[in-house]
């Protein structure tokens, strides 16, 4: 933390301009919808207006009769016989026998213009037989709920469970009943959170081209080009290597762009239209109705606490729906919810439940915000009851290196205690609050992730370097990877260009997800730079006629290592690169692995709110994010991640929610009624970057993208209670619900 007095590194930890900045502010950056091709057609998608319906017939004749309409596809244009998640993806791409949610794609059409495609889509006649539907998770788990899909449960679900339960989990350790018996106070509460959407500014867009020979190309806005390739080829029954996928610049993803939606439709339409490229750009309504929001949750938590603040036992039972397919992040929610605390007695039970909603996708720390809302809310209420300082309670129970986590594995190096101590020291905590104002504190956790990674680095003839990575830059990874590469090679930040490349250029990469890009691609780039350095030392050694081991790399140049190696002036990277054609050819380095050494990240948030007691409206007065980054490679980007996570969490806490009408249709598929915070809703969000370096990464990186969305939900609920004395257990804490709670209290 004492970076200002002592700097270990020349570049790591500085804040240079972002490499994509000029392109983005001048409009030159090319996003998904900016890509066009000669002879291109436009695609439009016909979507179910029903939450649950049998598709009786689809008649495209009127659409096909229009001049300029080139192809219509339905499920019949996709191969049969898929299983498991491949089948789920196909079924979600285009409905088979039944439409499973409002917005589910039923058919798609390609035409010579966007307007024509949209008109043709309106002319495709679909006959439906409407079926009973279920939306809420507590309704969906009832034994007599409408059955979304018989036989969808996996082996984890015991006999006799309600029909929409598709995964079940039950794990823990110790004896929770004995633990509750030891406590001075045992409380049990139920909580609910509603589905929310990532709300990225850029709607999904792609341009797909597929010939009769099974060879294809796709340009697409995505967090992961190899996932697009794998999923599209699975859904269409193609060979993975025959599809080349190029990612565009990306206007946000937050997990929602790690899977496929309309991409296979563009390929199927292209194939049917004789191989012409087909572009599909979603509207905002399509994004909200038919991409991958997060799950909604219903949660029961029971905790035992001693007067001295020790947690004696904890139990969580979570029910989540993630749409009409398995995959609600109930497991993640359970793993994360007690992770900040050192527990001997802990129990978890989880249900993944189907409902007539879109298939959920990842959303920033999937599951963790819901679990944190329940657990951190209850702990706060209990601290109030026992008059214990909530920060002291958290310090008392905080996990440290070597402790067994609540979900099993032992923690490596972690920085929760340092994070809580930095929070305690922050001046925001001593600001006096006025009437109807309150302060709330909560902690949060995310594992972080490694994943398949392949990176290639090449030294150019002039001694600059290019790095090819497979992880799209959604949070500043190009800047961070350039900083780490330049630091390693001993050259300038501007001398490194990091390119996010297409699937044909590297081995398989997982998407930018799990806060992994700066960790995994960054680590691979540093290792690749090490290979290039070794080769450059070898070339210098050859020229000097000494052993390669007698050469070391210092400040961007090869030099003899010690007096025994002989007297030679340093040979710079530019000198070595300038003659590489004569000394053995191109100089490069590459690295492929699932990088070991992931470092988890804990955070603690403190929010001050003011509640208008006459309208129930909550204003965020002050907001503080404290989080362990391991090491902040580019601190401005780290702060941006902290602030972005907090902003999304604030939206989720206060106003965002999927609202359904009684027919199961999404009632708010526009940003007017799906209320993400606007800039004027938020104060400047204060940040403190704690740095407990991750020993598993050459520069100490943990990964910072996700933890920040977990504490806001409970922190704001805790602050509202502090301000006006009502405990909100159901998100969002909109003015109407807060006012109703105030009235109910009287």
């Amino acid at each position, binding site marked *: 933390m004492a970076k200002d007095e002592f700097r270990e590194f020349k570049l790591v930890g500085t804040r240079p301009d972002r490499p994509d900045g000029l392109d983005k502010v001048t409009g030159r950056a090319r996003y998904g919808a900016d890509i066009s091709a000669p002879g291109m057609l436009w695609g439009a998608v016909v979507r179910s207006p029903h939450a649950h319906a049998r598709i009786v017939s689809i008649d495209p004749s009127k659409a096909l009769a229009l001049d300029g309409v080139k192809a219509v596809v339905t499920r019949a244009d996709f191969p049969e016989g898929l299983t498991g998640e491949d089948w789920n993806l196909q079924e979600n791409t285009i409905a088979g026998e039944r439409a499973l949610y409002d917005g589910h794609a039923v058919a798609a059409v390609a035409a010579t213009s966007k307007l024509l495609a*949209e008109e043709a889509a309106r002319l495709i006649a679909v006959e439906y037989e409407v079926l009973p539907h279920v939306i809420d998770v507590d309704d969906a788990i009832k034994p007599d709920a409408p059955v979304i899909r018989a036989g969808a449960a996996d082996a984890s679900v015991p006999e006799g469970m309600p029909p929409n339960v598709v995964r079940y989990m039950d794990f823990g350790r110790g004896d929770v009943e004995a633990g509750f018996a030891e406590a001075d106070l045992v409380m049990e509460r139920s909580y609910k959170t509603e589905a929310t959407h990532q709300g990225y500014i850029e709607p999904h867009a792609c341009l797909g081209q597929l010939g009769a020979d099974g060879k294809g190309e796709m340009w697409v806005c995505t967090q992961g080009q190899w996932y697009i390739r794998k999923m599209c080829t699975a859904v269409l029954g193609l060979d993975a290597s025959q599809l080349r996928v190029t990612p565009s610049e990306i206007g946000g993803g937050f997990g929602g762009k790690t899977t496929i939606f309309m991409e296979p439709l563009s390929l199927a339409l292209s194939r049917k239209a004789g191989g012409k490229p087909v572009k599909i750009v979603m*509207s905002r*309504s399509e994004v909200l109705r038919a991409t991958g929001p997060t799950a909604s949750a219903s949660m029961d938590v029971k905790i035992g606490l001693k007067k001295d603040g020790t947690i004696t036992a904890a139990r969580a039972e979570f029910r989540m729906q993630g749409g009409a397919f398995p995959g609600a992040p109930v497991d993640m929610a359970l793993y994360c919810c007690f992770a900040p605390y050192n527990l001997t007695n802990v129990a978890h039970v989880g249900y993944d439940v189907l409902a007539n909603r879109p298939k959920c996708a990842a959303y920033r720390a999937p599951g963790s915000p819901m679990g944190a809302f329940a657990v951190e809310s209850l702990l706060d209420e209990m601290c109030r009851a026992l008059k214990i300082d909530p920060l002291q309670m958290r310090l008392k129970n905080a996990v440290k290196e070597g402790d067994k986590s609540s979900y099993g594995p032992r923690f490596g190096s972690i920085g929760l205690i340092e994070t809580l101590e930095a929070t305690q020291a922050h001046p925001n905590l001593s600001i006096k609050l006025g009437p109807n104002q309150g302060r709330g504190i909560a902690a949060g956790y995310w594992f972080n992730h490694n994943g398949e990674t392949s990176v290639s680095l090449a030294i150019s003839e002039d001694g600059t370097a290019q790095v090819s990575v497979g992880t799209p830059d959604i949070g500043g990874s190009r800047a961070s990877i350039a900083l780490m590469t330049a630091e390693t090679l001993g050259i300038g930040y501007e001398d490194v260009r990091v390119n996010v490349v297409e699937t044909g250029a590297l081995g398989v990469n997982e998407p930018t997800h799990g806060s992994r890009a700066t960790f995994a691609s960054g680590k691979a780039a540093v290792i690749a730079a090490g290979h290039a350095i070794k080769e450059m030392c070898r070339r210098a050694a050859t020229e000097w006629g000494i052993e390669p081991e007698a050469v070391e790399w210092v400040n961007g140049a090869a030099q003899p290592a010690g007096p025994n190696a002989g007297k030679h002036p340093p040979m710079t990277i530019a000198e070595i690169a300038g003659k590489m054609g004569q000394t053995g050819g191109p100089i490069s380095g590459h690295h492929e692995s699932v990088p070991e050494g992931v470092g988890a990240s804990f955070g603690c948030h403190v929010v001050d709110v003011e509640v208008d007691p*006459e*309208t*129930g*409206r909550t204003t965020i007065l002050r907001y503080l994010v404290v989080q362990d980054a391991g090491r902040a490679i580019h601190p401005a980007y780290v702060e941006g991640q902290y602030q972005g996570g907090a902003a999304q969490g604030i939206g989720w806490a*206060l*106003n965002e929610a999927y*609202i359904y009408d009684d027919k199961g249709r999404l*009632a*708010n598929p526009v940003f*007017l*009624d799906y*209320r993400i*915070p*606007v*800039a*004027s*809703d938020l104060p400047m969000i204060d940040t403190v970057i704690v740095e407990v370096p991750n020993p598993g990464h050459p520069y100490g990186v943990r990964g910072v993208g996700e933890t920040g969305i977990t504490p806001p939900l409970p922190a704001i609920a805790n602050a509202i209670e502090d301000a006006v004395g009502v405990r909100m257990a159901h998100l969002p804490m*909109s*003015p*109407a619900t807060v*006012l*109703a709670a105030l*009235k109910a209290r009287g």
Partner: protein
Amino acid sequence: MRYHTPSTFRDAAQIAAGASGVTRFLAGGTDVLVQLRAGAVIPDDLIDLKKIAGVYDIARTGDGGWRIGIAVPGIALGAHEALRAEWPGVVEGMELVGSTQVQGRATLTGNLCNGSPAADSVPGLVAAGASVEVTGPDGQRTVAVQDIPSGPGKTSLKPGELISAILLPARGDHAGDAYLRFIPRSEMDIAVVGCAVSLRLDGDTVTEARVALGAVAPVVKLVPAAAQAIVGTALDDAALDKLAAAASAACAPIDDKRGTIAFRTEVAGVLAKRAAKIAYSRAKGDRA
């Protein structure tokens, strides 16, 4: 779609009278074009009124009031010092509409004729006692603003009729108005409840008042009982409570994604009090 650019209101009325399909007038287009792009309303005839002379003018009328052209955007209304000084509540209602970009286009007339119960400029106009000049194929008539909306998305204008100007009465002395809306966020949102109050004082005593509510009924509502609650008082706490009760009692809202019946009813009273206090202090001469 046929796009027309008539040069007089009479021509516009005639085109509209002769059209048989979906017809829309184009003022700022911030409702019309959004609805068109969303595929919600695709007009057969689109009649652009911005080529008609005088539609961008704000002019003093013979009786000391104002005549506001149908294409005057929010930003021009806000920049008009004299109008703003006399009718701050009307101006602030319009200025709440949309963002800076939307303000460059959006008009009072369009806001009124779009027929939204939540239209932000309409309660202020109703409280002000504003009227509109209506031009039809057969001539002109003047109609009170509160009589224009007839239901969500609907107006009482007959086929072929359109508004040719907004008319504000003379303000007179010791008077003030104010508009407040409740939204969950701080900007770029739609009123869950809106309330405008216009009043006149004699010393400390309210002698005249008009109270209008938005988003609590199918149309913006003038609430005489709420006005009566404060006339003859110095806006003491008892009068404010009566005002709030009368405003809440006038509400006939719906439960929807934007707010509940209970919430809208309660907050209508809260906003009425708050708006009345602002109007009162403006009438006293505070330029806040």
